[in-house]
């Protein structure tokens, strides 16, 4: 079985390398991409979409299918991680550790399944538990709102500067992961539960595909945003610009949700009851 796998990899790899021999020279000014496609994008992206950033115009409008399935790939990656790691079986734990908060004494309690996690006097802790760290928590509490605002800026400003849905979503997810690291997994699950993270990522993908479907309903091709001018009360060019913003918001939601979901699964190895 292993030999078959190696042979398949070698064969497909050599076919790929063989096919690159037909490629045009690196940076060849006479290649088809440089004589037809790039020229079209550079000349027409502003009058077509009124988006100054050509990269955004290409990714979210001209090659919108590609970006849609990229979002789907990220969602599938989150789903694969979930299916591999999530542990649904509630294994009976032999004991749990409870910390008495006023004295700092840790108790080991057997058959602790029906005890609450947090009470006024006792707190369930992990074997990797560390005491409250004032410096880390204060600093990350100070910095997290700024990172989130920056993430929103990156998503909303993708028309004019580098950035867009993917980058903004990752920054947003990273801000929440910073919070989860400096506090604990249980605290962060209270704010964004597993369900919320999954719904967030699903809604993101659906916003993208839904924008495309809406175009279909208004009588043009899938993801041809020009026809959305009828419901946005603008001309088709500004409608494209606005629809790119919708699509970026969808991508951002999906990526942020998947980032948080991946972090939950990996940090607690799928058990969700303890971890960082």
């Amino acid at each position, binding site marked *: 079985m292993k030999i078959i796998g190696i042979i398949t990899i070698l064969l497909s790899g050599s076919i790929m390398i063989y096919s690159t021999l037909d490629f045009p020279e690196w940076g060849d000014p006479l290649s088809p991409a440089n004589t037809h496609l790039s020229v079209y994008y550079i000349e027409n992206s502003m009058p077509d979409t009124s988006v100054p950033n050509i990269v955004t115009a290409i990714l979210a409008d001209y090659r919108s299918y590609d970006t849609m399935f990229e979002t789907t790939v990220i969602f599938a990656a989150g789903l694969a991680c979930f299916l591999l790691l999530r542990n649904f079986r509630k294994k009976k734990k032999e004991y749990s550790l409870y910390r008495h908060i006023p004295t700092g004494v840790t108790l080991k309690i057997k058959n602790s399944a029906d005890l609450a996690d947090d009470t006024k006097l006792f707190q369930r802790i992990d074997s990797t538990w*560390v005491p409250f*760290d004032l*410096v*880390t928590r204060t*600093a*990350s509490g*100070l*910095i997290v709102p*700024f990172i989130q605002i920056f993430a929103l800026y990156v998503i909303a400003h993708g028309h004019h500067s580098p950035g867009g849905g993917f980058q903004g979503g990752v920054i947003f997810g990273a801000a929440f992961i910073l919070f989860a690291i400096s506090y604990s997994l249980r605290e962060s699950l209270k704010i964004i539960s597993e369900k919320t993270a999954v719904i967030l990522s699903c809604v993101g993908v659906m916003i993208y595909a839904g924008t495309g479907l809406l175009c279909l309903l208004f009588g043009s091709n899938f993801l041809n945003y020009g026809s959305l001018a009828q419901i946005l009360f603008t001309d088709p060019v500004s409608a494209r610009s606005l629809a790119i913003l919708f699509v970026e918001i969808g991508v951002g939601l999906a990526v942020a949700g998947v980032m948080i979901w991946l972090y939950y699964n990996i940090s607690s190895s799928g058990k969700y009851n303890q971890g960082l």
Partner: protein
Amino acid sequence: MDFFVILLMLLGALFFTGGSIGIIRFPDFFTRLHPAGKLDTMGLLFTMASCSLYNVNDFNLNNFLVSLKIIFIVAFIFITSPTATHAIADAGLRAGLVPWTKKR
């Protein structure tokens, strides 16, 4: 103006050089964190101050806003970099690393 820009840039480079030499030359984990955290933060302050000063050479609102953003970078680095160093040192101590002493 240019004199101050060059002076600040050189000062920043001096701090960065000190930090890099310190990371290589110091004997153990905790002492190496010291130049990595402190000197880089200080070097960043000087180099970024020099950049923002150079940027407002012909003063208008646009350049002023860009310089303000550069100053914001310094402010955030001043919050995050020492915190990160603190957290790493804390984790090292909890993991059981013994601080270096000259004679055992």
